[in-house]
């Protein structure tokens, strides 16, 4: 298991901070990639942030109403070692299937 933290990104043009409005996940939740996990408000708008990875929520850095600075930690996940990367999926280990059968006459000479 690895711990991965994500900082609050700059949500506008040079914004410095955002206020946590509502956490859409709680500690211990399994979050999927691109699943919205928090609603924050900046001086320009309120916005839901999608999770950049799939993982289990370990820490929420702030309570609703708290101001979080850009580039400081917002959320920390624990990520299983066998989970996919940021792109793609882990191939399923399926039992091999086939339709073709071999029917060769082997004339060994």
């Amino acid at each position, binding site marked *: 298991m690895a711990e991965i933290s994500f900082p609050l990104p700059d949500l506008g043009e040079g914004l410095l901070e955002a206020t946590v409005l509502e956490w859409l996940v709680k500690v211990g939740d399994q979050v999927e990639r691109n699943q919205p996990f928090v609603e924050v408000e900046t001086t320009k708008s309120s916005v839901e942030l999608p999770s950049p990875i799939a993982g289990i929520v370990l820490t929420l850095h702030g309570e609703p109403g708290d101001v979080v600075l850009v580039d400081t930690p917002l959320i920390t996940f624990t990520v299983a070692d066998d989970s996919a990367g940021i792109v*793609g999926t882990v*191939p399923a280990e399926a039992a091999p299937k*086939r339709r073709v059968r071999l029917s*060769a006459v*082997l004339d060994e000479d």
Partner: protein
Amino acid sequence: MSDTLELVRETPLLQLSMQQTINRALGEILDTDDRALIFGEDVGVLGGVFRVTDGLRQRFGANRVFDTPLAESGILGTAIGLAMAGFHPIPEVQFDGFAYPAVNQIITQLARMNYRSRGTLPMQVTLRVPSFGGIRAPEHHGESLESLFAHVPGLKVVSPANPQQAYHLLKHAASMPDPVIFMEPKARYWNKAGVDLAADEETSALEGSVIARPGKHATLIAWGAMVSRCLQVAELAAEDGIELEVLDLRWLKPIDEAGLAASVSRTRRAIVVHEGPHTAGLGAEVAALVSQSCFDTLRAPVERVTGFDVPYPSGDLEDEYIPNIDRILFGVQRVLEYRRG
């Protein structure tokens, strides 16, 4: 015989994934080689998008494991300059499809610096490239660049098929004075297998091909993720009474001509399987080598089961593109049925 070995072994084999064995190998290389540096996109703080460099920055510090801008040409340019200054760069290109911007640096500088400098500027660069398809990624995240790189004089190209090989081949590749393209089959990153890290593999055992499964009626030749698929095919073919040998080529430049010839001269039939497009794919080189060395014993022309001559498709069409079990079995059938005249 393997049962006997199991009994005398003091500790059971570690069950590790390729992701984990590559991580261990990288840690050991950094530990033993002060000149070794790891850099690339997200390899530092994040630990790599496939977690392959996980924890290395914490262990070895940000001077030896560091993130780069999203500029593959710059990553390779940096590697070349560092190698000229005596370092041993181990850069990562995050996905094979991102290697194209770096191809100019690789071909016009990295591959020929040793030649150009008459051996005074060897390029000990171990370039890791998560390669091939199989993970349903979008465009540019799954390609098969082996024939592109194998065509360039001055480069070595290798692709491991399982966790044990990945560990030993990466350490071996890193010990070479030449640039080596290390193609990690990303579809096999997560599969765990018993690994003997302590196996004191002779250098000679890490060069050339290996027989992944012995057989006598035909040889399936593959590398990377296609090796495990060919092993599945061999298992199924055995149900039909056909014993297929699976030759894991491992080194794609230089190709183990002697190993190829030894296998096919026994089985007398060959099918080469790869994910890359058909035309001018590495299968053509393999077929030519086999034809040359085994012309008198071959019972059929060498069959190629490959990707199609189309851009590597996105995830939804991947299963139609990558050689599947049935396509490989058809190839085997064609070779078995072939009659002269």
